[in-house]
């Protein structure tokens, strides 16, 4: 790539700018709408003539958004934690141990990764209602864990395969106990893969909409993406464009933080799980 001419470099740099602009325009539009006053929403110009915090102060003092935001964070974190723990165990077995049925396990994970969610919604709705899980945190956590597991097992077993496990033996030869060998040698090597997996699983839970609107009925367990749907109606007489945009920006902020800090990890995780399988 050192042989690129100046003209080629200019071409690729121009392409970069096209990519950046196309990726950011819809996000910028949400930001713009979230700062427009309700009366200015009917002005189709891209940026607001006057910037106002009104939409944010509105949603951030309303239980209709705050409670779902807390639900999203809580349900997302718990689901991610359980998924990563269970997936790590299974991925360790896949990467390091030989046992019959390994290909069946990988096939099962692949099958579930492809599973059409809507096919699950009808029966799960009935089951959750009879078990009392409907409209509870666990009613969402259980399916989120189940759908986080294939992603976790794939990504983690790809990461675990790359770990030089001989180091564990070497550490033991040098006098480390099995516990020390694990905590001082193996765990630090496994941690990046687990962080990556946790991010991917959390993003998947954070993003879900279908299960969230199907298995919840009040703000006690409704997540943020599902709650935006209910901003309209009720006593809100103004068009909810501004509040919805502000809520959309708020739930996008964690994603931007993840992407900024863990860009390399996310790319590695996405590609290792899918390509090396």
């Amino acid at each position, binding site marked *: 790539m050192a042989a690129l001419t100046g003209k080629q470099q200019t071409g690729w740099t121009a392409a970069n700018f096209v990519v950046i602009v196309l990726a950011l325009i819809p996000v910028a539009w949400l930001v713009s709408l979230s700062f427009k006053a309700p009366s200015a929403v009917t002005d189709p110009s891209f940026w607001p003539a006057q910037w106002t915090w009104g939409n944010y102060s509105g949603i951030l003092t309303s239980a209709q958004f705050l409670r779902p935001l807390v639900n999203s964070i809580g349900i997302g974190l718990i689901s991610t934690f359980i998924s990563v723990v269970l997936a790590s165990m299974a991925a*360790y077995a896949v990467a390091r141990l030989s*046992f019959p049925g390994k290909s069946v396990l990988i096939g099962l994970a692949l099958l579930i990764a492809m599973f*059409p969610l809507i*096919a*699950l919604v009808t029966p799960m709705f009935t089951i959750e209602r009879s078990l009392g899980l409907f409209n509870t945190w666990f009613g969402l956590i*259980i399916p989120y864990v189940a759908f986080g597991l294939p992603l976790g097992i794939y990504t983690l077993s790809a990461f675990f395969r790359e770990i030089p496990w001989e180091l564990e033996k070497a550490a033991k030869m040098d006098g480390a106990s099995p516990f020390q060998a694990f905590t001082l040698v193996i765990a630090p090597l496994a941690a990046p893969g687990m962080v990556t997996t946790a991010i991917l699983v959390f993003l998947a839970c954070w993003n879900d909409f279908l299960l969230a609107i199907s298995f919840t009925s009040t703000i006690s367990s409704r997540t943020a993406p599902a709650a935006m749907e209910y901003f309209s109606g009720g006593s809100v007489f103004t068009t909810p464009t501004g509040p919805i945009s502000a809520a959309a920006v708020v739930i*996008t902020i964690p*994603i931007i933080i993840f*992407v900024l800090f863990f860009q390399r990890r996310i790319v590695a995780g996405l590609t290792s799980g899918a*390509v090396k399988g």
Partner: protein
Amino acid sequence: MSTTVPATGTTATPAHAKRRKPRPQLSEGAKQERRLAFWLVAPAVLVMIAVTGYPLFYAIYLSLERYNLELPQDIKFIGFANYAAVLSSPYWWQSLEVTVIITVFSVGITLVLGMLLAQVLHRTVFFRGTVRTVSLIPYGIVTVAASYSWQFAWTPSEGYLSAAFNNGAPLTSQVQAIAVIVLAEIWKTTPFMGLLLLAGLSLVPDDLLRAARVDGASPWQAFTRITLPLMKPAILVALLFRTLDSFRIFDNIFILTSGNNGTASVSTLGYDNLFNALNLGIGSTIAILIFICVAIIAVVFILGFGTAAPGTDAGKR
């Protein structure tokens, strides 16, 4: 300090005990390994089967019943009557057609754009990190948030895109609404496609491309004769993931059109049957039919993969 003396003794006993019963086929170590593997894998397998396997069979059972939540006293086993009702309904076939059209166009265009994006990410020298970071935003953003952005953008006299297109209201006509849905899908999924293809692209040796150029191949020839064949496994994996994902499309349609004006996909149709018509029997039937469609797509792709299917040992090298 008292533990030092018996330590050697206790570790030696189980080893002797195990050696007493020799199995000809499987060493004790291998058996232990299997047992450990079983316990490590069991929780994950249990959760996955409990959440998908059991409801799937329950859905098959429900699909054979007349079961409307509004008429709880009228639950009755009716065999395949629900299937006959769904398969003879124009709504099912229209939603299937819409779903297939959205899948074909969005996946096809995403493949081309993703390939371009992969080339940009691979070849670029300046702003490499910035481009990767920014292109991850559409991948990471909550689909519903992005859908609202598109919906507001296409709202007449409110949105910048509607204003740019003669104050049009594309979401109210079938063909244009489907085009907007496809656009929203493409924007959201091109980065994922691009990153998967980038991983495949980085496996293509630069030397090979340079050698081809020296031998007089045009850049296009080098791309079609060297890059594409070497990337075939990565392309197939990316296509499989995207096709199945796109076939399940729900969020974008739900927010953009609610499935009105002939834009319902099979998923939004299934959802409506459950939550608006409260018909568990028909809803389950649609769910099973979608599952069969997804299974067919997966089988077709996996036959296309040959030995390079993800997860098989042959594909791992």
